[in-house]
């Protein structure tokens, strides 16, 4: 493509204009190179027509408090998403919820090629905001729709309120007025917030993304530290939500691992008893020392547990057995006493029963070797004979071990889920849709 002769349009290069306020005479700096519509005198706070070369006064307003200073001074430049922007305007806006005023601050940013951009700040929470190019979709049947759809994502209604601009400074790409009201609705999809602002008939949609104060500070190379962020902000990304799925996936994977361990290590070995015998406690004959020793049996494999099961056909009776598991070679012994008792009957509440005819005990960490049991049974001497049997199993699955493992895995998952839920609850507690309390509190009404 050919380009013709360069027109003699001259050397007038746009640059920062220096003018004076028609009200107080203070220097007015126009930073937006003619793109701004209004400019507010930083000295006397007159709102001036930035399009008028004579800077006609549009409005004067009393400064509420001299403490109202932008955290990022006008004229500061910073890099946002790779582009330099200059802070050219500042306004403080207020909404009233239940007669409590909430303030937030908006900074107007400008780049002569890319145009305008905004930074908002509330309680140390920042958002990087641009005007939407695509129109969000809301259900037109509702005056305040519960959700909005933007670029294929659903944003949930957070709050609708009337925002009042109560303090303005610098330049604005619209005709700004102190005291001007806008009907503002926020929809959130953390970390983004979709806002509609209605002034008279026009609706402006903007899309903001949560920014951490420290990133704003480094982008604008500001001294000191950003103000502490208080509470949970409407579109603040939850530090937990990303982890929830991951932690439950890990939980599921590790639980499967645990089950595999259980099946792989313990189930095959817990099959057949290594020793089984049935005895008779003859109480009439049992005078003196009733103890006896069993035949020997082999405990194989690595050092592991041993399960001893005692079964006795007792009814409204008991039997007590003093056991010693003894290693034939080393003489090392494990002593333990077990009781088997079972009672049942009828009373005014119907039938009842207590105890069990079967008792199981696990002796941990028994090395392999040749073993035998020494058994000393005791019972109520007034009763007749009791038959009982003893079974010894090697290397049984200890459910408690797996139970503890399972709980250890479950705990972080539950904890993170709980923290995430409480994060979301404190987010939504500030909205038009506060969550109902988890524990119903008694009301005096």
């Amino acid at each position: 493509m050919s380009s013709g002769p360069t027109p003699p349009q001259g050397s007038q290069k746009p640059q920062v204009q220096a003018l004076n306020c028609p009200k107080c005479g203070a220097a007015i700096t126009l930073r937006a190179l003619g793109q701004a519509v209004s400019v507010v005198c930083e000295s006397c706070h007159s709102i001036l027509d930035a399009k008028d070369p004579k800077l006609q006064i549009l409005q004067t307003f009393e400064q509420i408090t001299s403490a109202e200073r932008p955290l990022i001074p006008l004229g500061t430049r910073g890099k946002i998403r790779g582009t330099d922007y200059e802070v050219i305007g500042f306004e403080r806006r207020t909404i009233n919820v239940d007669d409590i005023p909430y303030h937030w601050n908006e900074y107007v940013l400008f780049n002569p090629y890319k145009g305008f951009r905004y930074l908002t700040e509330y309680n140390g929470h920042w958002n990087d905001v641009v005007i939407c190019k695509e129109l969000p979709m809301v259900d037109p049947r509702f005056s305040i729709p519960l959700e909005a759809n933007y670029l294929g994502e659903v944003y949930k209604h957070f709050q609708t309120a009337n925002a009042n601009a109560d303090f303005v400074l610098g330049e604005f790409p619209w005709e700004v007025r102190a005291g001007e009201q806008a009907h503002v609705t926020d929809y959130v999809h953390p970390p983004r917030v979709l806002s509609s602002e209605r002034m008279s008939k026009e609706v402006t949609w903007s899309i903001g993304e949560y920014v951490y104060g420290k990133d704003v500070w480094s982008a604008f190379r500001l001294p000191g530290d950003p103000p502490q962020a208080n509470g949970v902000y409407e579109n603040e990304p939850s530090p937990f939500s990303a982890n929830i799925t991951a932690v439950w996936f890990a939980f599921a994977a590790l639980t499967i691992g645990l089950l595999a361990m259980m099946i792989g290590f313990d189930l095959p070995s817990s099959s057949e008893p290594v020793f089984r015998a049935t005895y008779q406690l003859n109480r009439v004959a049992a005078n003196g020392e009733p103890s006896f020793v069993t035949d020997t049996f082999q405990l194989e494999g690595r050092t592991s547990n041993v399960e001893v099961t005692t079964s006795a056909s007792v009814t409204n009776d008991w039997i007590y057995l003093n056991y010693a598991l003894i290693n034939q070679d080393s003489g090392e012994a494990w002593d333990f006493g077990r009781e088997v008792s079972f009672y049942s009957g009828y009373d005014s509440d119907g039938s009842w029963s207590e105890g069990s005819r079967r008792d199981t005990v696990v002796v941990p960490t028994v090395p392999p070797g040749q073993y035998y049991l020494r058994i000393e049974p005791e019972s109520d001497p007034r009763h007749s004979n009791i038959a009982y049997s003893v079974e010894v199993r090697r290397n049984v699955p200890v459910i408690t071990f797996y139970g503890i493992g399972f709980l250890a895995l479950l705990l972080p998952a539950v904890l993170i889920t709980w923290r995430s839920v409480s994060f979301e609850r404190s987010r939504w507690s500030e909205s038009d849709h506060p969550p109902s309390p988890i524990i119903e509190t008694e009301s005096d009404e």
Partner: protein
Amino acid sequence: MTQRIATCPNCGAKIIFKWSSSVQTVCEYCKSVLVRTDVDLKKVGQVADLPPDISPIQLNTEGNYRNNAFVVIGRIIYQYDQGGWNEWHLMMNDGTSGWLSDAQEEYAVSFPVVGPATGTAISSTAGQKLPAESQLQIGQTYSWNGATYTVSVITQAHFRGVEGELPFQYWNKDDVTFADLRSSSRKFATLDYSDTEPVLYLGDLVEFEDLKLKNLRQFEGWS
């Protein structure tokens, strides 16, 4: 039509047309508004002093829209309550012409909706009548070429001047109404009420960097 190279009937300066279909141009030297006839150029008006430039775009800025290179060859300048606003006339590489609008550095590229047979701008598509200016309402939706557009802004603009080559005569205007329509995508529409019959422009809202613009204005202190 007049040759590609002609002489200004007012001051005698050389006039070079970049686009063969240009109907109007402005003499760079004496600011006469010139209209092409079958034989020569006719002076129809005079451009008053233009407002100070605020756009990063200028005549001869080059760029690219959907893999179709373009060069800026003219513009119409309007004023509205938010300041100045430009409609830059683009000569596309494929010989058609388009528009790049730039209002407070919100950029949109659009093309007049063209009738299949005539190849010229028409005022309505396939039997569908465009809304009259008096019918315009914010929030009203229309469907063109399969997309739904919602009226977002109705702008009362004031014609402020022209520069360079245009595809039609456009110089003795005063107040003009425009309606901007947006969609749930980047698709964008403008209804132009500067003539008796409305004209529909369809296009896209674009990011500055996506246009890959060259020959931009330089702003002191900014790169």
